[in-house]
């Protein structure tokens, strides 16, 4: 019985971190889908989101909802700014230049954060009453429940956006054939900016949810979270939206199961082992499109 409850408990933990990975992985996948760029600055957008949440709650004693909204707005603006300033001028350049620029932007954000906020962690006050909800023998932490619900709502909203609106269809059209989309009157620049905005907004939500679980902000917090979300995106098939969601949950649950086996120090290793295996066995991921070179 106790083994069973432990596993359930770890699964809940897995769902909690998995939904955060999924939100972040969506940003990676959407941006990759539209401009074939692995946006390694994406993790650092989350870091900025966490600092915004910290500032709002610790400095201005704002309500968590307001902090969430501020983080989402801040991340969205930052994401679009990064795209306009760093990636747009390189639209015609080889992909490797874009990739290196993304790494540069990542270091830039980390160092600016260190300059402004210092290298020490800023602790975010607990903002959710963490009395677990008892379901028989299983205690579900409130943070886990809120995280999964908020992430779930965000993903449903994203799905509606992508499937049922003109902007979403434009995104899918541009990611399939940017040239043809433009000849049908779609403004590519607006569509790319919009994709960055949506991906970064999801990162903003992810950052606040992450702070529920690990309530502190540090300048480098985004890099490991970003890398794991990147693994999730690759596992699901980079460029694929449902793939990113599935990949995120899979990585979260894999981590939790490794921990529940008493091997928590192997957690990160297992995630990267998954990356290696995926790249060896099925580089297009679970739901990715088969790679076809355009002629």
């Amino acid at each position, binding site marked *: 019985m106790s083994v069973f409850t432990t596993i359930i408990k770890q699964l809940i933990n897995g769902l909690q971190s998995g939904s955060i990975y999924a939100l972040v992985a969506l940003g990676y996948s959407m941006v990759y889908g539209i401009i074939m760029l692995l946006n390694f600055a994406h993790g650092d957008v989350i870091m900025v989101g966490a600092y915004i949440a910290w500032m709002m709650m610790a400095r201005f004693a704002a309500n968590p909802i307001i902090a969430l909204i501020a983080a989402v707005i801040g991340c969205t603006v930052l994401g679009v700014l990064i795209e306009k300033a760093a990636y747009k001028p390189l639209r015609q350049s080889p992909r490797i230049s874009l990739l290196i620029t993304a790494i540069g932007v990542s270091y830039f954000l980390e160092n600016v954060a260190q300059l402004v906020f210092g290298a020490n962690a800023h602790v975010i006050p607990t903002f959710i009453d963490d009395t677990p909800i008892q379901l028989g023998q299983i205690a579900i932490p409130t943070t886990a429940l809120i995280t999964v619900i908020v992430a779930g709502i965000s993903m449903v909203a994203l799905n509606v956006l992508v499937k049922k609106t003109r902007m979403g*269809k434009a995104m*899918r059209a541009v990611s399939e054939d940017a040239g043809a989309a433009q*000849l049908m009157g*779609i*403004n590519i620049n607006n569509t790319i900016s919009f994709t960055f905005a949506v991906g970064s907004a999801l990162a903003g939500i992810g950052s606040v949810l992450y702070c529920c679980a690990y309530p502190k902000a540090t300048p480098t917090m985004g890099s490991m979270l970003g890398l794991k979300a990147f693994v999730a995106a690759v596992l699901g098939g980079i460029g694929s939206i449902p793939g990113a969601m599935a990949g995120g949950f899979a990585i979260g649950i894999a981590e939790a199961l490794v921990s529940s086996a008493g091997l928590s120090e192997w957690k990160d290793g297992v995630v990267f082992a998954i990356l290696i295996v995926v790249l060896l066995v099925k580089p297009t991921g679970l739901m990715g499109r088969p790679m076809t070179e355009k002629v």
Partner: protein
Amino acid sequence: MNKLVKEPSYNLIPERDLGKTPILECRRIGIDFGGLSAVDEFTIAIGRTEICGIIGPNGAGKTTIFNLLTNVYRPTRGSILVNGVDTLGMTTDEVNRRGVARTFQNIRLFKDLTVEENVLIGLHNSMNYSVASSMLRLPKYWKQEKEARERVRELLHIFHMENMTAQQAGSLPYGAQRRLEIVRSLATNPGILLLDEPAAGMNPSETAELMETIRKIRDEFHIAIMLIEHDMKLVMGICEGIAVLNYGRIIAKGTPDEIRNNPVVIEAYLGKEDE
């Protein structure tokens, strides 16, 4: 922008379109690729309801012309006027919004999207609701989406595709994919439709049907059509004016009858006799 310079007329604008601004006008456009001029001295004006054809041997620069007209390539020389407005400096999507739509020689549908979604992409600019109104599901969103979907149904109905709405575009049979490309272009509400080898890969009966379709588009949508085609029967059958291109230059212009009997054209296609 709209220069009122009288240029010598090289045009074949049909009588009914005379006296109106041509939907498309090219004034001595040319483009060089690495010192090699791919198109040069291309001058033409298309009437608002004209069906015009561009023919010429392979590599004569026909598709290059389409890429110039849609600003995919920037001309090295000359100017292009859409509806009397110079398109210099416009992006491809702006040119589309000004009224130029096209199809592709090698079909470029959004294969992962459904038939309906492909046409909705064409209608993108006819809707203007915001992200907020779509997320909050405000009446504006519903109204515009509903109107767009009705328009999609109308357009698909004209081309006998209304029963394929939910299918993935990539899974359609070849002929239907060609038709869907035309529907998608028409959805952008163009003044001129550029068709790049619309009959490629079609059998004679499909080609005959396509000719009917092209005429129907002109008559129902009141737009001009410019087509590149190798199928002489189609070109001679529906075009009012034909321009013959060889090595990037227009070598002849005229009605189908004039072109058919033009010795320069015959030479370009068949080679010179006695040599």
